[in-house]
């Protein structure tokens, strides 16, 4: 079992290329999800503050 897993990760000598492509894709795709999520939070908070102010007035 273990050698098989090792072989799988070895990728016939192309480990670096294969895993960094997949890794890069993963990172970029996840970043593109996280960034709008964070931005949404920030925006909602700032709008909430704005709304709050208006209500107080």
């Amino acid at each position: 079992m273990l050698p098989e897993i090792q072989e799988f990760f070895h990728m016939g000598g192309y480990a670096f290329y294969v895993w960094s492509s997949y890794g890069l894709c993963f990172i970029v795709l996840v970043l593109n999800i996280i960034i709008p999520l964070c931005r949404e939070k920030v925006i909602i908070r700032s709008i909430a503050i704005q709304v709050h102010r208006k209500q107080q007035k």
Partner: protein
Amino acid sequence: MLRHINQFASPKNFYALSCKLVHYFGGACLLLFVAGVFGGLLFSPPDYQQGESVRIIYVHVPSAWMSLFVYIVMAGAGTIGLIWRIKIMDVIARSSAPLGASFTFLALATGSLWGKPMWGAWWVWDARLTSELILLFLYLGYIALQSAIEDPRMAARAGAILALIGIINIPIIHFSVEWWSTLHQGPTVSKLDAPSIHIDMLIPLLLMALAYMCYFISAVLMRARCDLLALERNSAWVGELIGERSR
């Protein structure tokens, strides 16, 4: 008819609808990704020439396809926004740009990572590679223009025109392999009549392509929602929405 569309495309309705869509497509995307990655890494055979490095195909080709597709979406949405003044379309065009740039970057990066073992160099000045690089610059130019113009309405309309002018490059990228003899792979998958690729590789590849597509839809909607909120921050429906939520 037009009024119908306008009503559907009102920011408020769109915001509500997009929330659902993000969830559906996000879920589909996750499933497809898992299937595609497993299929690609575990169940598909290594290539007889390229060995295991061929597994890069499952991330490279969908990224490359999406990089072209997203540009078309961006230009199309921008044009619709420009002509019919539909705000949603402006927002979608604007949100597509960073995603398209990301896909282009991924196509370039994974292509380089594939090229090093195959051609012995990270980069060769091949027509397709270079034209893909141009595509990246087109996206960056679009983003730069958007950020240089402060008024969002003006920025969206200016961007639409730029994207339209730039669309001339898309066929050039796509057909570059046929027009110039190059190192890069010719059409293998996209020859519709007889794909010259093994079925065991084709299936995970198509799964990944679908996954990318779903990913794009949900990601672009997420971005669009943010932009919409920021744009419409002074309008009544946003006030109500946030007011309810914070209560």
